[in-house]
Structures are given as structure tokens and as C-alpha cells.
């Protein structure tokens, strides 16, 4: 059994981005996402629990439960790691208030896979990936008696958490000027809902080399290229649903932007903003090249410190307002939920979150076959999409709460027309 360090339990305020998520929850929807790692052997649940016991002490802001104060929610470090949960037939099952009060993340073992599902108030995709890598490293150390060096996002489980890892960086990085929040309403697909709560996961697997080559042909990054494929698929789907072009609504894809590189920080809290490329199909049919160019310039204009600081300022200033701070939590929840419902979810058709190339210490690579990133569906829209690249494969995971794979089908057609080979698998058999 590995040594577990003892430190007093901590509590932290929710960071600026995390504040909206508890208020926006509803009966059938909680903002949860999943990251998983598939290893070479069947997971030993006892060893995984032991590895988790060690790991949670290193991540006081992630291994936490959601508590209520009089004016704000806060996170309190859990006393002990949660039990390893069994897998169900679909990912991201509803996380109830009761569950979040006990622990706002889950660790799930199924055959060769270790999956962790996080409530989004705990951390963002990058923070979650560091947690998963560290948990996996500890598991591999205990299971195969190897030593994994603390590098490539694997943290040393036996050192104390660093102060900068717990920092709410939004407060520090807010700029002097607020960016405008005015935005157009995006097209949302209406289709027959899955009534039993089942979520369909569809994974597209592409060869990294082939995808990078295709992206470079269009002078684009992989994120820009896949976003263009997604927007083209959405445009085609909207045309299929509504043949009259003048009745079309804007196609918008929300791309989360990891701000850690922009502001040089090691925080494990939420520290991501977003950019939303948009095309207006009423203006005419866009070629793929035009869409790539549009996304490329949008991202080039917005992903820089100055612009991001102004977007952060717009959010942070509200939080700093004394009148807002003094409103009791139940009232704040009502207002924030109303804002989220009327503004937040209407900005985009879906989110496309790319964690990029996942790098691991050399010794871990031989044990790890695959990694996945799955976002939960939006509260009022049926789709979301998470992707990452591991080894020589890119894994693009769609999640949906409607019956038919309409968007996935169009996404595949666009990839096929671009000459890209893809393999598809799903959780519906």
C-alpha cells in the first residue's frame, strides 16, 4: 500500500466559470463530462481504489463535493475517495444533487477501461486530464510495480498541492474593458428525444497522420479543420431539414479555448474561455475552403490575451458587484438559471472541445491502448462533441440524447468527401 499524505481538508470558492453550472442544473441534466483511459489488462478494482485513495489527496479542488453557503456554492475536499462505480449502458448518467453533495466526480471501471466523470464546476478538460493521468500512473505503479516519473501532466502524488494549482485565474486575468455579450441565436436541431434518458455515444476514429495532412492541405490546424467539417455537416443537415435557405438560422460551433498557455499558469481549476465561429447560411452555400478560412480568421482574431481578458472581464465584473454578491443563493440561482436558459445555450449549435494530442511518460505508453473524451449533451440542445488524439489515432466522440444519428451521418459524409478514412463505433448494440 502506498503512503498517503495527511493534510487538513480544504474548501475553495467556485471559480468564475464554475458558478453558473450548479444554478443551471435541472431535473434531467447536470453538466458532467468524462475522460477515460483503456489499458492493456482488465482493471483490478481493488488496486484502482487504492490508487484513487492516494490520488485524491493531491487534488483538493477536484476531489471535492459541492456545498451550499448563504450567498454562493463552494467546493469542499472529500474526506475519502468515492467507491469505484460500475459502468452502465451509456456514459454520463445523471448526477443528482444528492450525489454532488457527497462527491462531484465518479470513477468507473469497466473491463480494461478506467473512466472519470466530473461535474464541470470542479475543473475543465485540461485539469481533468491531469487528474486522470495521475490516477492512471498511480494505478500502473501499484499494479505493475513500475515507477512513473512526474512529467507530461502526471503529478507527483506524494507532494503537497501547490498554491497556484488552486488559483481562480479568472480574477487575475480580467482586463480593464468588458467585451460585448451581444450574440446571435444559433440553429438548434429539433428531433425525437430518447425518452428513457439513454445517451448515444458515437466514436469516429481517424488516423492522426492522415488528418493532420488533410488539415495542412487547407492551411489549418486540426481543431480548425474538424470544426469546419462539423459546420459543413450542420449546414447540410439544416438544408435537409429546411430546404428554404432564407429560413435558415446561423450555424455556430462553440470551441473551448484552454487559457493556461496564454497566461502561463498551472491551475487545476476551470480556466477556459471560448470562441464561436459562425456562418450565416442565408447568404448562400459555403464551400469547405470558405468555412476553414472563416474559422481560421475568427480564432486568430480572438485567441489572444487582450481579447480573452476583455471577455473574462465581462464575467468577472458581475461577480465583483457588491449588490450581486449580497443576493442570497436561492435568488441568485433563479436569476443565473434564467440567464443561462435565455442566453447561454442559444449561442451555439453544439460545443466541440479538442483536448489535443495527449502526451504521456514513455513508460506508461506500453500499458495504455486508448483514451477518450466525452462531453455531456447541452441542457436544451441534443448534441456535443469531444475529441483528443492519442498514439496514431484521433478519437472524436459525439454524444446525443435524440434517437437518430442525423448529425453524425452528415459529419461522416463530409469526411468521406474529403477523402478521409474513418471507423465508427457506438454504445448501441
Amino acid at each position, binding site marked *: 500500500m502506498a503512503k498517503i499524505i495527511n493534510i487538513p481538508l480544504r474548501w475553495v470558492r467556485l471559480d468564475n466559470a464554475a458558478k453558473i453550472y450548479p444554478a443551471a442544473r435541472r431535473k434531467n441534466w447536470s453538466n458532467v463530462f468524462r475522460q477515460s483511459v483503456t489499458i492493456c489488462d482488465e482493471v483490478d478494482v481493488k488496486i484502482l481504489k487504492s490508487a484513487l485513495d492516494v490520488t485524491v489527496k493531491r487534488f483538493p479542488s477536484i476531489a471535492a463535493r459541492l456545498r451550499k453557503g448563504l450567498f454562493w456554492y463552494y467546493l469542499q475536499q472529500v474526506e475519502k475517495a468515492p467507491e469505484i462505480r460500475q*459502468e452502465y449502458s451509456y456514459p454520463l448518467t445523471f448526477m443528482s444533487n444528492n450525489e454532488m453533495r457527497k462527491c462531484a466526480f465518479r470513477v468507473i471501471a469497466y473491463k480494461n477501461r478506467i473512466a472519470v466523470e466530473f461535474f464541470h464546476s470542479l475543473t475543465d478538460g485540461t485539469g481533468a486530464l491531469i487528474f486522470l493521468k495521475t490516477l492512471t500512473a498511480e494505478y500502473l505503479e501499484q499494479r505493475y510495480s513500475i515507477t512513473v516519473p512526474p512529467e507530461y501532466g502526471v503529478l507527483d502524488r506524494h507532494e503537497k498541492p501547490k498554491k497556484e494549482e488552486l488559483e481562480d485565474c479568472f480574477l487575475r486575468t480580467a482586463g480593464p474593458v468588458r467585451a460585448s455579450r451581444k450574440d446571435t441565436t444559433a440553429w438548434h436541431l429539433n428531433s425525437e428525444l430518447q425518452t428513457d434518458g439513454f445517451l448515444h455515444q458515437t466514436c469516429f476514429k481517424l488516423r492522426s497522420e492522415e488528418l493532420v495532412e488533410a488539415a495542412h492541405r487547407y492551411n489549418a490546424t486540426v481543431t480548425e479543420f474538424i470544426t469546419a467539417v462539423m459546420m459543413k455537416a450542420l449546414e447540410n443537415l439544416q438544408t435537409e431539414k429546411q430546404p428554404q435557405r432564407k429560413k435558415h438560422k446561423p450555424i455556430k460551433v462553440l470551441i473551448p479555448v484552454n487559457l493556461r498557455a496564454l497566461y502561463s499558469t498551472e491551475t487545476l481549476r476551470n480556466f477556459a474561455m471560448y470562441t464561436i465561429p459562425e456562418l450565416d447560411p442565408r447568404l448562400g452555400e459555403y464551400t469547405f475552403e470558405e468555412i476553414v478560412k472563416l474559422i481560421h480568421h475568427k480564432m486568430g482574431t480572438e485567441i489572444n490575451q487582450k481579447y480573452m481578458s476583455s471577455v473574462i472581464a465581462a464575467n468577472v465584473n458581475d461577480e465583483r458587484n457588491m449588490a450581486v454578491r449580497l443576493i442570497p443563493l436561492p435568488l441568485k440561482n433563479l436569476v443565473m438559471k434564467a440567464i443561462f436558459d435565455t442566453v447561454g445555450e442559444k449561442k451555439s449549435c453544439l460545443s466541440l472541445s479538442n483536448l489535443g494530442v495527449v502526451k504521456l511518460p514513455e513508460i506508461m505508453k506500453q500499458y495504455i491502448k486508448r483514451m477518450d473524451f466525452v462531453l455531456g449533451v447541452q441542457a436544451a440542445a441534443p448534441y456535443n462533441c469531444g475529441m483528443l488524439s492519442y498514439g496514431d489515432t484521433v478519437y472524436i466522440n459525439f454524444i446525443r440524447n435524440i434517437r437518430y444519428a442525423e448529425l453524425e451521418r452528415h459529419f461522416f459524409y463530409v469526411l468521406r468527401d474529403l477523402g478521409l478514412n474513418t*471507423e465508427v*463505433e457506438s454504445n448501441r448494440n
Partner: protein
Amino acid sequence: MYCINCGVRLADTEKKCPLCETVVYHPDIIRGEGEPLYPENRMPQRRPKSKAFHGVVIFLFLIPLIIGFLIDIRTNGDLTWFGFLAGALLLSYVTVALPWWFEKPNPVIFVPCDFAAAILYLLFINLHTGGDWFMPLAFPVMGALALIVTTVITLLRYLKKGRLYIFGGALMALGGLTVLIEFLLKVTFGLKMVGWSFYPLVALVLLGGALIYLAINSAAREMMGRKLFF
């Protein structure tokens, strides 16, 4: 293996194409045994609604019932007005609290039930006060109202389009109901038919007609949307 319909390459675990639902089958190709992404048929248990919550609601309804019973007995030595209170509480319970017992209460069932409860309550008041207004007035008016509301709710629930037609038709039917009310008031209480009901009838028919016109004419609908957006 590739899908014979859409052409996507399928993982070995797929029994149907995840994109177009075409069944995967080829008699000459033996497929490898792949690991499915998730276990089959293992769904999370949905937590049933808390019975304690319903217990508390029933208790909240019982408090005024018991207090009313005791006050009526103590002050009058008999049950005089308690029946009205009990009926009102029962009606409130049926309309407000009863649907909460169900996972997904269907308004197409509950709305007629609510009207039936209201009609029974009116019948009780009529019998208790020795009135003779129930059959000639209350029953037909409540019955007609129940028919209009239930029809609107059923159409809204099961038809995805045509809301302007539904609301337009409902407004016209409500206009007709006002005429029926004036007529039944004359029959029941011998009131003079002065024709007040024609004013709401005209207003409601015009309003309903306008909605149906908007439903038919897309240019007018767009213009109204432009003028009235908020």
C-alpha cells in the same frame, strides 16, 4: 466491415450501423470479436419520487380540514359549512397535488378529471343549498368549458404544428360559450336576454379569426413578428 448503405467502416462490435441503422450482415465475412464500448442492458435505476413529500402534502391539506371540522362542530354544534371547506380542499388536492404522484402526469387525462371534480363540487353545493341551477346552468357551462380546454390541450400535446389554428379556434369557441351562458342564465333564472354576450362573442371571433388569418398568411405572420418582437 463496411456499412452497405452509407459506406462507413464499422468497428467489430457493431451489429447495426450507428449512422443509418442498417443491420450488419454478410454471409461470407467472419467478423472479429470486439469488446463492446459499454455493457448491454444495464441502465441506472431511476429514483422514484419521494413518498415522504406526498405525505407532507397530504398532511398540509389535512390541517385546515381538521381545524375547520373542529371549529364548525364547536361553534354550531353540527356540521354546517364544513362540507364546502372539505369539497374545496378536495378539489384543490385533485387539481394541484394529485398529478405529482405520477412520474409524467398527462394533462390530457388530468384536465378532464379536474373538470369532473369541479362539476361534482358544484353539484354538492347545489344539493346542499337546495338550488336548482346545476342541471340547467352549471353542468352544461362546465361541460362545454371542459370540452374546449381538453381539446386545446390534446391538440397542443399531440400536434407539433398549427398552434395559431388551435388558439384561434379556441377563442371562437369561447365566444360561442358566452352566448350559451347568457341563454342558460335566462332559462335558469328568468333573466332578460339583453345581448351582452354578443360583445365578447364579436371580440373573441375577431381575435380568433385574426389568429387563423395569421396562420394562413405567412407574410402577415412575418410582419407581426417584426412589429411585435421583444
